[in-house]
């Protein structure tokens, strides 16, 4: 012990004796500083991303069928969803998993996507009109309309008819303009023009009530195709037990509307999708300009904001097409007053309103939301609407499902993240309808139809030989058959009654007792994730559950590997720094040893053993490393602390996910400090070994000769 104290004291005394030591110390300090700061940032980033992934979709562990063709990746693989085999006995799996120690909750899931097309403005207006007429005439119609009294239905029919006539007026105006442009080569389809001429006359509307359905079909087939701006939204959704999801993913909060009532079918739209893709484009652009200005950007100098203003000014048609005659008049008057304009046409007035500058923006923004928005539909899908989702089933055919939108939701801190905010939520029953899993009953029915038909399967390779080879007879006489749709249909077919489905309350057993594709597991102690994964894997083998369990990181696919890539890059950078340090330390220590030949020789002459000399040089370099490394760690921790005081702002919306919110708050973690310490000790000792051995070989005689 005395010897160690002596060596340390000697090391400290010699530390500042040589400027070379300061150079070496500086290098160690720099390397440690970089490692601690970047390591701390990466650790914080990793933890933030874990919070995002675990808290928004994955849970701590994901399970899926081990017979799946692909591995589960919750955020898709190269734009497509993985091909997972359906889990058909989820209740058994849930029961087994619930008994695993550390498993808090098992949330059944299935991820899929669908394209929502809503037709153009004429299609949607005519659809409303058709539904109103059907409700008025006592035909099957949406329950919300069927419940309305006759006079309210009549009032709405008049309003929608007026809207339709206004749209026709706009389309006629477009046709007129196209005709005047004919000299420039723009042609008007005479077929369209003929239809427009017919429906713009009062006679068409005067007789409309005589046969509303035939007249609606004329409008649907001849007028609606003239408008080409059909809008589409791609909705990615998770089918899940919504109650369990809400309980497990506590960062989830409803933004608009309400949660789906317990046990009901229903849909919650991701709020970001609702804002980005379902809001009026003009309104969304105004919101973006407002946000950008709040962050110090100016319309006058920012190209993107200039573009938004230009688009708002030119694209007023989507607003004009939403207005009926009465609303057009009212809005024209209020805009004339607000803008002090004498313009009488609504299009130019809206353009004027949208001509925004840094000076008038706030006022125009208020005017838009105060005067225009109350007259139009701000969102294409509203809370309370019935959304028709059309998706490709597992077998490849298309399935449609109506599902009520109860609200929109977001995850706290991830409101702007496109990764966390792009997935909507759907009840598990609707998800199963869309997934189209072939039950044993359905498979039997299909088999029976195939059997009755007795059709022969022919392979592509042999098709021509089998169909047209020797013995093939192509021509045959037919006899007329009786084809009656009323007798051919069983009547027990798929007649989903919208009202019943919306009102029906499902038990937890019903939610669980069906197909799921995967499930999220929430743990009591997330630090024991690996241990829990191993237990589940063992359990699956023992009880033949046929499931595979993976961590949140693996379930997030490429996304989960990003941190590992960054970490690898950091290690490479630090390795380079410390390799350079090793070379420099080695050379410096060699020089230092040569400089101290006399001292070491004298020490050897007065009885110092080689072991003491070796220890002296090594301890000296270790003390040097620990001192400057320690300073580096302190400085690094200080820098991280300073950064943490304010946090690092997410540079864009995508980084919200990695930062688990608008700012990354880094913190010093143990791992980088321990790793830094190990690296420093290794580098200093390894690079000093050769000079230290060299020092032990200095003899007193040689030291004295050197003096002479």
């Amino acid at each position: 012990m005395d010897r160690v104290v002596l060596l340390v004291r000697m090391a400290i005394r010699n530390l500042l004796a040589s400027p070379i030591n300061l150079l070496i110390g500086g290098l160690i300090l720099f390397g440690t500083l970089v490692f601690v700061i970047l390591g701390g940032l990466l650790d914080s980033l990793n933890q933030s991303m874990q919070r995002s992934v675990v808290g928004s979709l994955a849970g701590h562990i994901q399970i899926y069928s081990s017979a799946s063709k692909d591995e589960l990746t919750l955020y898709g693989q190269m734009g497509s969803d993985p091909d997972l085999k359906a889990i058909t006995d989820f209740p058994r799996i849930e029961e087994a998993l619930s008994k695993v120690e550390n498993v808090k909750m098992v949330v059944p899931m299935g991820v899929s996507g669908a394209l929502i097309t809503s037709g153009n403005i004429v299609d949607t207006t005519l659809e409303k009109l058709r539904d109103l007429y059907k409700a008025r005439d006592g035909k099957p119609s949406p329950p919300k309309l069927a419940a309305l009294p006759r006079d309210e239905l009549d009032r709405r029919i008049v309003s929608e008819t007026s809207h339709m006539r206004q749209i026709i007026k706009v389309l006629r105006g477009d046709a007129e303009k196209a005709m005047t442009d004919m000299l420039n080569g723009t042609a008007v389809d005479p077929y369209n023009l003929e239809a427009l001429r017919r429906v713009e006359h009062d006679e068409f509307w005067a007789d409309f009530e005589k046969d509303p359905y035939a007249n609606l079909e004329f409008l649907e087939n001849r007028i609606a195709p003239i408008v080409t701006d059909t809008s589409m939204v791609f909705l990615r959704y998770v089918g899940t037990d919504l109650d369990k999801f809400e309980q497990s993913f506590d960062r989830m909060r409803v933004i608009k509307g309400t949660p789906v009532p317990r046990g009901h079918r229903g849909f919650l739209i991701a709020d970001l999708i609702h804002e980005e893709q379902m809001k009026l484009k003009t309104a969304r652009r105004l919101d973006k300009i407002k946000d950008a200005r709040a962050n110090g950007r100016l319309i006058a100098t920012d190209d993107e904001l200039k573009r938004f203003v230009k688009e708002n000014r030119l694209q007023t048609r989507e607003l004009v097409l939403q207005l009926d005659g009465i609303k057009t008049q009212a809005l024209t008057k209020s805009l004339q007053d607000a803008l002090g304009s004498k313009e009488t046409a609504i299009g130019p007035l809206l353009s004027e309103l949208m001509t925004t500058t840094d000076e008038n923006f706030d006022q125009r923004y208020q005017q838009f939301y105060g005067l225009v928005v109350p007259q139009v539909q701000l969102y294409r899908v509203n809370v309370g609407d019935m959304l028709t989702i059309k998706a490709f089933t597992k077998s490849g055919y298309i399935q449609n499902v109506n599902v009520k939108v109860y609200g929109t939701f977001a995850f706290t801190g991830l409101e702007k993240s496109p990764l966390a905010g792009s997935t909507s939520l759907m009840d598990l029953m609707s998800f199963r309808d869309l997934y189209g899993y072939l039950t044993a009953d359905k498979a039997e029915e299909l088999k029976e139809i195939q059997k009755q038909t007795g059709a022969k399967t022919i392979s592509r390779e042999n098709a021509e030989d089998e169909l047209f080879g020797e013995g093939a007879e192509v021509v045959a006489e037919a006899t007329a058959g009786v084809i009656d749709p009323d007798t051919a249909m069983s009547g027990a077919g798929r007649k989903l009654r919208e009202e019943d489905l919306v009102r029906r309350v499902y038990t937890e057993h019903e939610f669980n007792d069906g197909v799921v594709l995967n499930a999220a597991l929430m743990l009591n102690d997330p630090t024991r994730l690996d241990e829990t994964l191993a237990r589940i894997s063992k359990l699956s083998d023992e009880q033949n559950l046929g499931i595979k369990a993976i961590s949140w990181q693996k379930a997030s696919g490429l996304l989960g590997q990003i941190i590992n890539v960054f970490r690898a890059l950091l290690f490479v950078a630090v390795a380079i720094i410390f390799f350079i340090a090793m070379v420099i330390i080695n050379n410096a220590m060699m020089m230092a040893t040569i400089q101290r030949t006399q001292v070491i020789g004298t020490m050897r002459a007065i009885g110092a053993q080689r072991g003491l000399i070796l220890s002296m040089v090594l301890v000296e370099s270790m003390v040097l490393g620990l001192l400057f490394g320690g300073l580096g760690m302190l400085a690094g921790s200080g820098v991280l602390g300073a950064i943490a005081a304010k946090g690092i702002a997410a540079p864009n919306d995508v980084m919200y996910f990695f930062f688990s919110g608008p700012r990354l708050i880094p913190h010093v973690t143990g791992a980088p400090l321990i790793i830094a310490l190990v690296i420093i000790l290794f580098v200093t000792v390894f690079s000093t070994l050769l000079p230290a051995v060299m020092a032990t070989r200095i003899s007193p005689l040689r030291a004295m000769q050197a003096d002479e």
Partner: protein
Amino acid sequence: MRNAILLTLSLTLASPAFADMTKEELGKLLTELDDRQRNGGDYKALAYLEQKEKDKADVVREVMIFRRDSDDKLVMLFTKPKSEEGKGYLRLDKNLWSYDPGTGKWERATERERIGGTNSRRSDFDESRLAEEFDAKFVGDEKLGKFETVCLELNVKPGVDVAYPVVKLWVDKVNHNILKREEYALSGRKMRTAYYPKWQKLYSESKKAEVWFPGEMRFFDEVEKSNSTMVLMKSIDLSSLDQNMFTKAWLESKSR
């Protein structure tokens, strides 16, 4: 008159000077191929559809097809399996609508719509409109199995919306039935090969002549090579249809 047309067609197809036919003459030939299948009056059929795809369960459907060729109208009503009952398509003018009684919604479909999730298209069930939609050119004489055929290349006319803009047809020289059809995208990529191994004929009162229709159609997907579709016409009836059949209201009423 009909016999005269068939004789002309027969002579035309058998003629060694086929390669020298003008564009107009080839157009006339397409008209004649259409005319063999045209009823002029009403038409209804019960068809069986089967789609096979790798690693997927077979898609099996029964569908009733109602046509009024004089007005270019078409209704398709699915009757089997139960889960598909009441779904359908309605073609009016240039519009193709699809209907799902489960949602009560009508949606616009395009010419590329996969009927009932199979690789068949609306045009496979509708009146043949080759002359109206395509310009033809002669490719050559080819043997298809034991049949001597004439191969034609058809290119879509400007402004016409069809599922595939380029088509190759193999027409039986003896019976004048289309035996094979290859369909291509504009890029030249082959998309689908169709075989018509059974042609049936039925006397039509409205036409006062026989109407030909393919009793069996086999479609092989050329993109997803393992996918194929079979269509069998189980029954045909050429009697008159209800006046109000080609409306949304009629199709809706079938699933009430």
